[in-house]
């Protein structure tokens, strides 16, 4: 971020104030996204933001693009339909960690496998904000949630590893404590041709913070600061040291044919070879 970008034109200010709690990280992620997109001089009319259901998914309602607020867990198939129907559109998906890795987990790995040209921003707060602080597949082991009052038995996913293993060609992680880095990660992701995933680690002070006695929103950001470690630094450290850290950076940057491009090629080939038989 060289100069402060004017992101106001991208917002439906008449829909303000947002529903988000004071200190919620959702606005920080949206801010980073808008600053990122403002550097790309894309025609806003050609941008579609698709979201699921959750606190974070309400983001689409405040953005001055084509938007679609879908059902819980389903933004990716919806976005896939958009992209396949009109590959000219820039398609961005915003959803919570629950939306993406629980109910929408299957769609997530398959979008990655297809390597379809969509940017997926996961608002990862480690809980279900909207419905009142239940467990998410991103809730840490032994952490508290209203549906895990005695501590979570599960172990969380690593969204980046999951995306990578499933075939995503751009994968990065940022945190709300470091919004400038988050912004440049998102910029790269938006520019990428193929399925790009940003694991945006954010804070839900109201539920996750309160249930896990993490203090104020500022305390939660300080916690991020104390636990963050860059991918480069992490590479030289033993596993047990980085176990409880948030490793940030770009994990995957690959070139593999994007899915709608493959479709186009197929159609061209078919036209040539008359492959209808």
């Amino acid at each position, binding site marked *: 971020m060289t100069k402060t970008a004017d992101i106001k034109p991208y917002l439906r200010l008449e829909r303000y104030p947002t529903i*988000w709690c004071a200190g919620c990280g959702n606005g920080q992620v949206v801010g980073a996204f808008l600053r990122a997109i403002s550097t790309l001089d894309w025609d806003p009319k050609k941008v579609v933001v698709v979201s699921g259901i959750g606190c974070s998914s309400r983001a689409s309602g405040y953005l001055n693009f084509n938007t679609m607020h879908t*059902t819980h867990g389903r933004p990716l198939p919806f976005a896939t339909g958009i992209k396949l129907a009109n590959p000219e559109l820039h398609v961005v998906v915003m959803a919570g960690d629950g939306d993406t890795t629980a109910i929408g987990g299957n769609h997530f790995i398959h979008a990655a496998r297809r390597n379809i040209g969509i940017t997926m921003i996961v608002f990862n707060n480690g809980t279900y904000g909207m*419905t009142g602080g*239940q467990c998410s597949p991103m809730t840490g082991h032994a952490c508290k949630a209203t*549906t895990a009052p005695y501590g979570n038995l599960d172990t969380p996913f690593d969204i980046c590893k999951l995306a990578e293993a499933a075939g995503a060609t751009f994968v990065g992680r940022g945190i709300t404590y470091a919004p400038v880095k988050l912004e440049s990660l998102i910029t790269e992701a938006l520019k990428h041709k193929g399925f790009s995933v940003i694991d945006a680690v954010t804070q839900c002070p*109201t539920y996750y913070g309160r249930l896990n006695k993490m203090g104020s929103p500022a305390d939660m950001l300080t916690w991020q600061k104390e636990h963050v470690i860059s991918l480069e630094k992490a590479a030289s450290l033993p596993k047990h040291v980085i176990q409880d850290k948030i490793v940030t950076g770009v994990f995957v940057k690959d070139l593999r044919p994007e899915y709608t491009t493959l479709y186009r090629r197929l159609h061209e080939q078919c036209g040539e070879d008359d492959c209808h038989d």
Partner: protein
Amino acid sequence: MNILIGGAAGQGMDTIAYLLGKALVREGYGVLTAKDYMSRVRGGHNFTKLRVESKTPFAPAEEIDILIALNEETYEIHRESVVTAGRIIFDSDMFALPEVEKRGVPVPLQTLAKEAGGKIMSNTVAVGAALSLMNTSTLQADELLREMFDEKTAAQNSAALAAGLKNVERDSCFSMPPATNTGKHLFLAGNEALGLSALASGCNFLSAYPMTPATGIMAYMAGKQDQLDIVVEQAEDEISAINMVLGASYAGARVMTCTSGGGFSLMVEGLSLAGMTETPVVIIIGMRPGPATGLPTRTEQGDLDFALHAGHGEFPRAILCATVLEDAFYRLNKAFDLAEKYQIPVLFLSDQNFGDTARSIEPYDFTNLRYNRHLVNVENLERPYLRYRYSRDGISPRALPGQFPGETVLSDSDEHDENGNIIENAVTRKNMMDKRLQKMVPLADEMDEPIIYGHDSGNILLLGWGSTYGALREAVDILQDEGLKVTLLQFTDIWPLPVAAVNKLLPQAKVSFCVENNATGQFAGLLRRETGLSTDHKVLKYDGRPFLAKEIIREVKKHV
């Protein structure tokens, strides 16, 4: 005496309602609280209505005696509902009321809370202020605080309570109705009653995915895992949840899942699997307005047709519903019994109106609960064991995997024979369909006739089902007080539809109404399909809010 507590989401209206409500219950009053909230965690406008009577009320009232306004918006929205002699407690640290407003009772909630030990206790101050207006002591509230918090926090809250009490002049108090309850009543919300019923019914396996307004059931049961040997598993989605419970049921657990319409949509494939494999399961559908995400925190009875018809193929099912706390506890117990006796899915319809409304009620009688697993035992085991053995009533012997040495339990989603092996032949297919559907015959005999309230054969007949009971009952009371003869039939058991009472009373009524919280009159449709009868009028409400008695009365009066 009616109190409305309003503010933005996150301001703790629930805490005030709970503390105030429970304290009044212990004083011996009959109390009801009903929640109206937006689909957001912060901001917006939410409120809880609290009604206090000698005997426990069945529905919230409209007019307000005491308004507790935690923000200015609450005052703006509700001031016209406050009676002339009413009082408006407001946080004078935050805002002032207009000069012309004579009903205001300023209480510096935050200042007083800070003095008592912390701003967070401003809600407790408000409770103290309200108790003072009601000329009620803080004894019970104090006791509750001691039960809720550690010694230090309780003492601070108690100081906050006293500050609220002191700040408000007692001589401006209202005359309270006499407190005639024992003070030993339970004070619980619909979702808690359902969770409690499930546990009391021996349900030891719940898998679900959070979805308003059913999440409270799961949260309630999850909180009991330290006392009971039960599994409460949050699945990754509703598809997984229903299949987990089916697996657990096959393995021998007594199972339930709970969701709302959107989640139930995802369960439908599993529902059909339960139908084919004859696997017992109880599914609570906490209805909210659809389609799609709809109004997540509001109420509707829009999923009856869906529950009746969900699932591909034809298979038996039962549908029961939650009308009122006093009944729903036993009704859900019945759902467990029917599910295992007939080896079918039982759908239990609730809604936000039922789930989020709390009332004071007499303690439940646990000796009235049924508990029979309906499994084969060594004495009546016929060898070879055939999971889907033909029988006169269509019910086959249910054994559990591992229950009998040398016997295995086969279950198949494909059409199968008596042993559970896949078949394709026409004769077996037809026999198996007949066997399964045969269960509907004895099942129909298990259905309870609707609750009858009011006149036993009035010339005005009202039909309702589920959570509309409270408003309908109040409408009946008011109309009867005006000299009309009104009968209410409130259905608790919906499928197979019990028709005796309605067949008798509907034709002889002079004018009849079917009252439903939906747009298309789904119950009226069911009634016509099953009996050929129709009510003269439908009274439908589908704005996401529960019925008020006066709305029903207005419709009735148009036609009498």
